[in-house]
C-alpha cells in the first residue's frame, strides 16, 4: 500500500548525514549498499545504479569521471530544477559519494543552458563545500580527493542521452554514440565514466544516510524507493511530488486535485498517454515507467493538438544523424497534419503506426526509440476523437 505525504527529500531534518558515513565504508561496500537498496536510474531508463557503479569501480584506469546529468529537458519535468536549487546538498554530496564508490577524482555537472540562472547558487554551494572540506583535497580527512565542475549545455534536448551528453562535454555536436562500448568503460575523454540523473545522486545520499533496508521498504518489488514526480497540466495543485513507486495514476490524480480528467501523459513527450480506462495502472518500471513527468489533460483538451505539440517537439529536437528518427518523426508530424485536414485514410494511419514501431527498434538512441510512443498511444486510445477529424466532424474544435 503506497504511503503518500511521507516525504524524505523535502524535509531537511530527515536527510541525516551521508558523507561521514560513506567514508567509514569501503567503495565496494557502498556499491553493495546501493545495489541492495535496489536503486534504479531516475532519469527514466531505470538501469540498476549499483551495477553501473560496480562496472565503473572494477574498470582499471588512471582517471574516472562522475557525471551528473542535469540536462533536464523532457517536457513536463522540473524535479531536478527543484533538487538543484533547494536540496543542493543531496545532489553534490551524492556525487562525492559516487566518486568515492567508483574511485574517481573528478565530477562534472552538465547543467542545461536553460537553467544557467542556477549557476551562481551552485558555484557558491561548491565553494562552501570546499571551505568545509567536503570537497577538494583529502575530504573530511578520509584521504580521498574529489572536485566538481559545472558545464553548461546550449539548448539541445538530445544531450540528455548519456552518450550525446559526453559528446557535448568533449566539444562535439550532441550526437549519440553506438553502445557498446558503454560509458562505464569508454566515457568522457575515453575514461570510465558514470552518468547518473540528478535525482539518482540524491537517492544515493538517502541510501547512505538511512540505509539500504530503509530505502527498499518503499516501492514495489522491482522499483524500490521514492520517486519525484513533476505534475503539470489540468489540476489544482501542480508541482513536484514525492511518492513511492507503485502509486496508481488514480491515486496521483486525487493527490494533485485533478478533475474531469481525460488523459494523463506519463513520462513526458516520449512517454505514453494513459486514458481514464487505465488509471488503475501504477507508476513503476514494471508497469508505467517515468523519469518524473506527469501531464494531465482535462475533458476540454483536443488530443490531436496535444499530439501535434509533441511531434513538433521531436522534429525539432531530433539530432538528425540516423534516418529512422530524422525522417520518421517528420512523417508522423505530417500524418497528424493530414488527420487535422481530414485527409488521412485509415489505411495510412495504420501504416504510420507501423512506421512508429519500426522507429522504436531501428533508431540509434532513446530519442527516436521513444518519440513514437505518444503517437501510437494517443491514436490507439483516442481513436474515436481522432477519427471525428477524419469524418470532418471536428473542424470547429481547433
Amino acid at each position: 500500500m503506497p504511503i503518500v505525504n511521507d516525504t524524505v527529500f523535502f524535509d531537511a531534518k530527515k536527510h541525516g548525514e551521508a558523507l561521514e558515513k560513506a567514508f567509514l565504508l569501503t567503495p565496494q561496500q557502498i556499491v553493495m549498499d546501493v545495489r541492495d537498496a535496489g536503486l534504479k536510474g531516475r532519469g527514466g531508463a531505470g538501469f540498476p545504479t549499483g551495477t553501473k557503479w560496480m562496472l565503473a569501480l572494477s574498470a582499471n584506469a588512471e582517471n574516472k569521471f562522475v557525471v551528473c546529468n542535469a540536462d533536464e529537458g523532457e517536457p513536463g519535468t522540473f524535479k531536478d530544477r527543484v533538487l538543484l536549487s533547494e536540496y543542493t546538498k543531496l545532489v553534490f554530496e551524492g556525487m562525492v559519494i559516487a566518486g568515492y564508490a567508483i574511485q574517481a577524482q573528478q565530477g562534472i555537472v552538465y547543467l542545461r543552458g536553460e537553467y544557467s540562472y542556477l549557476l551562481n547558487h551552485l558555484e557558491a554551494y561548491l565553494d562552501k563545500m570546499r571551505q568545509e572540506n567536503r570537497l577538494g583535497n583529502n575530504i573530511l580527512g578520509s584521504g580521498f580527493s574529489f572536485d566538481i565542475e559545472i558545464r553548461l549545455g546550449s539548448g539541445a534536448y538530445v544531450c540528455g542521452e548519456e552518450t550525446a551528453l559526453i559528446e557535448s562535454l568533449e566539444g562535439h555536436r550532441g550526437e549519440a554514440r553506438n553502445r557498446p562500448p558503454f560509458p562505464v568503460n569508454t566515457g568522457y575523454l575515453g575514461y570510465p565514466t558514470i552518468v547518473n540523473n540528478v535525482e539518482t545522486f540524491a537517492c544515493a545520499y538517502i541510501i547512505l544516510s538511512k540505509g539500504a533496508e530503509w530505502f527498499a521498504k518503499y516501492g514495489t518489488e522491482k522499483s524500490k524507493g521514492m520517486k519525484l514526480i513533476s505534475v503539470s497540466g489540468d489540476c489544482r495543485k501542480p508541482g513536484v511530488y514525492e511518492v513511492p513507486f507503485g502509486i496508481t495514476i488514480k491515486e496521483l490524480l486525487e493527490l494533485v486535485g485533478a478533475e474531469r480528467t481525460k488523459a494523463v501523459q506519463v513520462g513526458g513527450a516520449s512517454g505514453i498517454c494513459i486514458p481514464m480506462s487505465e488509471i488503475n495502472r501504477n507508476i513503476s518500471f514494471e508497469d508505467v515507467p517515468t523519469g518524473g513527468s506527469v501531464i494531465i489533460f482535462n475533458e476540454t483538451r483536443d488530443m490531436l493538438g496535444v499530439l501535434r505539440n509533441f511531434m513538433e517537439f521531436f522534429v525539432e529536437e531530433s539530432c538528425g544523424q540516423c534516418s529512422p528518427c530524422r525522417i520518421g518523426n517528420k512523417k508522423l508530424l505530417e500524418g497528424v497534419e493530414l488527420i487535422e485536414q481530414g485527409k488521412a485514410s485509415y489505411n495510412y494511419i495504420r501504416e504510420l503506426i507501423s512506421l512508429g514501431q519500426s522507429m522504436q527498434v531501428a533508431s540509434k538512441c532513446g530519442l527516436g526509440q521513444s518519440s513514437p510512443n505518444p503517437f501510437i498511444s494517443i491514436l490507439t486510445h483516442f481513436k474515436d476523437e481522432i477519427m471525428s477529424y477524419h469524418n470532418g466532424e471536428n473542424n470547429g474544435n481547433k
Partner: protein
Amino acid sequence: MLAQEKNALIYEIEALTKKLGSGRESLLPILQNIQRKFGYISDFALQEIARYLDIHPVEVYGVVSFYSHLSVEPKGKYIIRLCKTISCDLLGKEAIARTLEKELGLKFGETSKDKKYTLEYCNCIGMCDQGPAVLINEQVHTRLTPSKVVEILGKLK
C-alpha cells in the same frame, strides 16, 4: 567587420583559451562565452577559435549549428524565448505569444533592426507548473499574463 572588433574578438578568444584550455573539450564553453559577449559567432570568430584550438573551422561551424543557443547570425541584446511546449501551451502560451509579437513589433524568429530584441520560441524550460514561462537571456519569468508581459518588456533597457 572593423579591425577594432576583430582585435576585441582575438583578445577575448586568447583570454578564454588561457583560462579554459585549448583542448577540444573547451570548445563549447568558449563558444558560449563569445555568444554571450558578442551576440553571435561571426565567420571571423569561427576561424579564430578554430585556429586557437587547432581544428578545422567547419568543425566549429558544425558545433555552432547544432546547438539552439549558439548562432552565426547576430542576435539582439535581449533574447526572448517563449516556451511553446505542452504544459505552457495548456496554460495560455498563445495569448502571450500574440502580446510579445504586438509589443515588440516582431514575428517569432526575428531580431529587431536596432539589435535590441530577438523573439524566439523554445522547447520546455522546466517551468511547467508555473507557465506560461519565458526566458529573457538567462532570467526566467513565470505565470505570465499579457499585462505582466507589457510590464516586463517596459523594464528592459
